[in-house]
């Protein structure tokens, strides 16, 4: 059935604390109360930490090695937030000559440049470059083979 090939556009509900508090206390037992009792019902959620604005957040895969020195490896997952205004020092996803590329935005002298994390690639002056910012990289996720 063709419908089976279509999955939810929202595979997961938005980030939320767990609906039911975790039972950390030792209810019903006499004696010393659990020191964790006041911290019940929290759970760590990467969505909550990294996705500040779901409507503007997209993911991309990295190809190539020019950003290795900056900790971005081939095959890494980029979390890109389009709602952030780019500032020098930010890692950007930019559209350069019709390609989606990842670079670091820097000012050298008083000129804006797109820089790589690899000395083999010279900084590209942003002036007279056909370039548009696509979004700002908020996080890089590097998974190890396990």
């Amino acid at each position, binding site marked *: 059935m063709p*419908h089976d090939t279509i999955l939810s556009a929202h595979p997961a509900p938005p980030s939320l604390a767990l609906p039911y508090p975790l039972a950390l206390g030792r209810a019903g037992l006499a004696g010393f109360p659990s020191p964790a009792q006041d911290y019940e019902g929290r759970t760590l959620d990467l969505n909550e930490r990294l996705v500040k604005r779901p409507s503007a957040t997209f993911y991309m895969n*990295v190809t190539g090695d020019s950003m290795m020195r900056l900790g971005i490896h081939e095959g890494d997952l980029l979390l890109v937030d*389009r709602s952030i205004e780019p500032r020098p020092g930010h890692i950007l996803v930019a559209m350069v000559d019709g390609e989606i590329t990842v670079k670091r935005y820097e000012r050298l002298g008083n000129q804006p440049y797109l820089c790589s994390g690899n000395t083999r690639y010279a900084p590209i002056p942003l002036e007279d470059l056909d370039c548009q910012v696509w979004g700002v990289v908020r996080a890089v996720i590097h998974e190890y083979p396990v």
Partner: protein
Amino acid sequence: MSLIGLVDCNSFYVSCERVFQPRLDGQAVGVLSNNDGCLIARSNEIKALGIEMGTPAFEIQHLVRQGRIHLLSSNYELYGDMSARVQDVLEEYSAGVEPYSIDEMFVRFDGFANDQLLEHARQLHRKVRQYTGIPVCVGVAPTRTLAKLANRAAKKIPAYRGVCAIRPDNRETQALLKKTELSDVWGVGRRLVGRLSLIGIKSAWDLAQADPKRIRRQFSVTLERTALELRGIPCIELNDFHEPRQRIMTSRSFGKLTNDFSEIREAIRQHGQRGAEKLRRQNSLARAVLVFLKTNPFRNDLPQYSPSLAVELYRPTDDSREILHAAGQALQRIYRQGYRYQKGGVMLLDLIDANRQQLSLLDTPQSDADRNRSQKLMSIMDELNSRMGRGTVKLGTPSPGAAWHLRCDNLTQRYSTRWEELPAARAT
């Protein structure tokens, strides 16, 4: 005065593709229907080549080979997700959003002073573009019909830079109404244009000036309302409006907040059924179905979740069973427990004329016998329902039979919803 904004995405399907394929910017791009049958969405560049909506793909294949145009298969999962993102951004910056179709949303614009109004509209325009990458135009006016008109102006007249806000009584509005042909007014169909011109009504301005009572007598209540709306008197709600032919939207509040799945499913089925009836009455077929749910955005104390999902039909159809089946599938995938829903609805997308179905030769064929049976069943159902009251005959658990193989040679990735289909960012 309360004001209504209409936010309309520019060449929506093509824009969704361009967000992730920047090399398509400035290129002539078209999106094809199910099975790559015919053209259902066009970029400005492909319009400029004189290629019409609905053109069969094989007729323009030679332009693809010459590299003059790009044709893509429809990617409803991508379009549905991008549409939901646009709606999210609008919801963040306004008091209320009503989706009207996959690429158009009405936005409440209450309580803005004149000078803030334009600035706010510009902000929506800017933010949607920045956050989602989708370019939009914004029209703001006291009524939906005028908002449509303002939006059109924002799109066509470069000086507006994508945003046009109008008041009913000023000279700018007057000039706009005088320039607008009747066929470009929301809800005025082609046949009406001819009849109206016989009594000297040729422009939107003429219709606004005409005596509403007379319009009602000679035409209909619907047209009277349109005339009043052109004067700036609001009288059209989304749910009761006679929909134009491009899309059919049925939605309503549940009446109370609910998390009961079977109750919600029942409502969605009803909307789907109503939509299918409208579809048959106007003699159209739909190519896809979009289902959405909404929690109450004003209840800050409750968790919020407003999902939507578009599902492609395996061929253009007006058969309630197939539409309900797809809607049911979509609902099942987006429904989550733990939320209290306020509203839900069904949108039928990319309608075509039932009589022109033969045009898309590459679509999955349906045997004549099969089609006749379906038509007979549906018309009997519609007749019973209209004679004996809505809902006399309803569908139980429909399921269309065979599995179909969809042809989609130029399918792009589902860039924003699938881990295995993410766009690549080059570090080279």
